Each structure stands twice: as structure tokens, then as C-alpha cells.
């Protein structure tokens, strides 16, 4: 019995101690995880704030760069619009100001367009067409009208195969008169010069302007625009004048007188008047002789 009593086996499993240890370890891990989670969440929050700040700064900087590039391009394209730059800079601060600025610039553009259209209308009103009769052998597109011209272009197109030359008045830098010279489709010996605008200076050489002018209203029947004044000048006679200078003035004067005489003799009214005058003179002379 004693043996049994002395050799009693401890039948307890001591399970409670082990369970408590595991719980303690688990609790410490959980609290560590919670702490780490809190730390990482706080870090995330700070990083998000920094990211937002950096994005804002980046956008502001990008906007500034875009405006700078736009202003530079605008200055390069049209220097007179430089004055608009401050207004556009103000547009950065508020959208309302930007809207006003845009509308004002649109108004200015409209005014500019209206002014330009008005100028174009004025120029169109002052279009005149002059027919120059040349010799058939002459193939150049040069007409001597007393002004100095600078040729700036020549063109031939499929629908209009007759070549045409474009000139700009070179007498004065401020003069904006342009001239287009083209051979007439109906008569290749006739040069058609279309003038746009009015000269803002006197004719450089009076001799040139007088040489060979033969403004004959009864010229060949040519198509003409009702809005455009048409003049016909015979350049075949001007060839006789070798050099248009003051030295040749008597020759030019003689030529003018001849042309005036020829044109007057063609006028039946003038012939009748002349006949009456001569008859009257002869009658008076006969009366005095008697």
C-alpha cells in the first residue's frame, strides 16, 4: 500500500500552463502588429500629404512653363501683340479676369479685322484698268506709265495661261499702289494693266507721263468692268521716243501735237467747226480786199 502510496503517479496534464503561455505570446504579437499598423498608417498619411503638395507644385510650375512658351511663341509670330501679355498673365490669378481678358482680346481682333476689311474695300474701290497698245513683236509685260515699278512676281496658271506680272510702286516707300500687267486674251498686242490704290506722291517724271499718251475713247471694243475706270494708251508711238528725258522735250511736244491733230481731224464736229472758221476768215478777207 505504501508502495502504491509512495509511487502515486501524478495524473494531472498541466495543460493550463501551456495555454496561458501561448495566449501571452499571441497578445504580444497582436499588440506589435497593431503598433506597426498604426506607424505605417501614419507614414502613409504623411506620404499622401507630401504627394498632394508635390503634385500642386508641379502643376503650378508646369502652367508657368506653358504660359512662358506661349508668350514666347506669340512674341515671335506677332510682335505688335506684345502688349497683351500682361493681361494674359493676370489670367493666372482668377478665371473671371481671364475671361474678361479673352473677351477684350477678341474685341480687339474683331476691330482689327473690321479695319482691315474697310481698308480692303477702299483699295478695291480704287481699282483702275488701263489698256496699253503695244507692237505685236513685243512680248514683254512692261508698260511705261510714268511711275517706277518694282516687279515682285509673275504667274501663269492652267485656267489663265496668259502670263501676268505683278508690280509695286517704287517711287515712294509709303506708296502701296500695285499693278498687274497681262496680255489681253482677245488681242495679244494689248497689255492690260490693273492698278490698285492711289499714288500718294506726284509722278516722278512729267515727261514720262506725257510721252505718247493717246487717250482715245473710241478704242477697240474690250470687255470692261463698270466699276473700274478704263483708259487706253497707245504704246506703239512711244517707241519713237528713245530716251525719256528733258533733252527730248521738243520731240515729245511735236509728237503730242501730231497725235492731237490726228485725233482732232477724226472728229467730224471739229472738222465742221474748222471749215466754218476758215470760211468765215476767207469771207472777211474778201470783204476787206474790196
Amino acid at each position, binding site marked *: 500500500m505504501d508502495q502504491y502510496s509512495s509511487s502515486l503517479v501524478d495524473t494531472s496534464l498541466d495543460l493550463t500552463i501551456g495555454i496561458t503561455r501561448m495566449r501571452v505570446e499571441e497578445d504580444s504579437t497582436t499588440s506589435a*502588429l497593431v503598433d506597426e499598423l498604426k506607424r505605417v498608417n501614419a507614414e502613409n498619411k504623411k*506620404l*499622401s500629404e507630401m504627394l498632394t503638395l508635390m503634385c500642386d507644385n508641379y502643376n503650378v*510650375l*508646369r502652367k*508657368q*512653363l506653358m504660359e512662358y512658351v506661349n508668350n514666347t511663341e506669340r512674341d515671335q509670330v506677332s510682335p505688335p501683340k506684345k502688349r497683351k501679355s500682361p493681361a494674359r498673365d493676370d489670367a493666372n490669378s482668377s478665371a473671371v479676369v481671364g475671361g474678361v481678358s479673352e473677351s477684350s482680346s477678341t474685341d480687339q481682333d474683331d476691330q482689327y479685322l473690321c479695319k482691315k476689311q474697310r481698308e480692303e474695300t477702299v483699295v478695291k474701290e480704287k481699282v483702275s484698268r488701263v489698256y496699253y497698245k503695244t507692237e505685236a513683236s513685243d512680248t514683254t509685260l512692261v508698260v511705261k506709265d510714268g511711275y517706277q515699278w518694282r516687279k515682285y512676281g509673275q504667274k501663269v496658271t492652267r485656267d489663265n495661261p496668259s502670263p501676268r506680272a505683278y508690280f509695286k510702286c517704287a517711287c515712294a516707300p509709303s506708296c502701296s499702289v500695285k499693278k498687274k500687267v497681262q496680255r489681253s486674251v482677245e488681242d495679244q498686242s494689248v497689255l492690260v494693266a490693273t492698278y490698285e490704290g492711289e499714288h500718294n506722291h506726284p509722278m516722278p517724271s512729267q515727261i514720262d507721263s506725257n510721252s505718247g499718251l493717246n487717250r482715245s475713247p473710241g478704242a477697240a471694243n474690250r470687255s470692261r468692268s463698270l466699276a473700274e475706270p478704263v483708259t487706253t494708251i497707245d504704246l506703239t508711238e512711244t517707241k519713237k521716243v528713245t530716251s525719256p528725258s528733258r533733252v527730248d522735250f521738243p520731240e515729245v511736244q511735236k509728237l503730242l501735237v501730231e497725235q492731237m491733230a490726228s485725233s482732232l481731224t477724226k472728229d467730224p464736229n471739229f472738222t465742221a467747226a474748222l471749215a466754218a472758221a476758215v470760211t468765215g476768215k476767207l469771207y472777211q478777207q474778201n470783204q476787206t480786199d474790196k
Partner: protein
Amino acid sequence: KDKSASELREELNRVYSENKKIKEMLETVCEKYYALHHHLE
């Protein structure tokens, strides 16, 4: 408090991933910002 350790670990992994993404984005924005700043100078 009611979350278990495994749930906490899962949540922590999600936040780590989010953290990594934010850092990458921040790095990209910083690079772009300084490049732009350098270009403007």
C-alpha cells in the same frame, strides 16, 4: 481589438503595399518637378 493576428497581418500587408505605391508616385512627381524646375532655370 477584435481582429486576430492573421487579420492584422493581412491589413498590415495591404498598408505596406499602399505605402510602397505612394512612395513610387512621390518619387516620380519629385523627378518631374525638379526636371521642370531645371528647364525653367
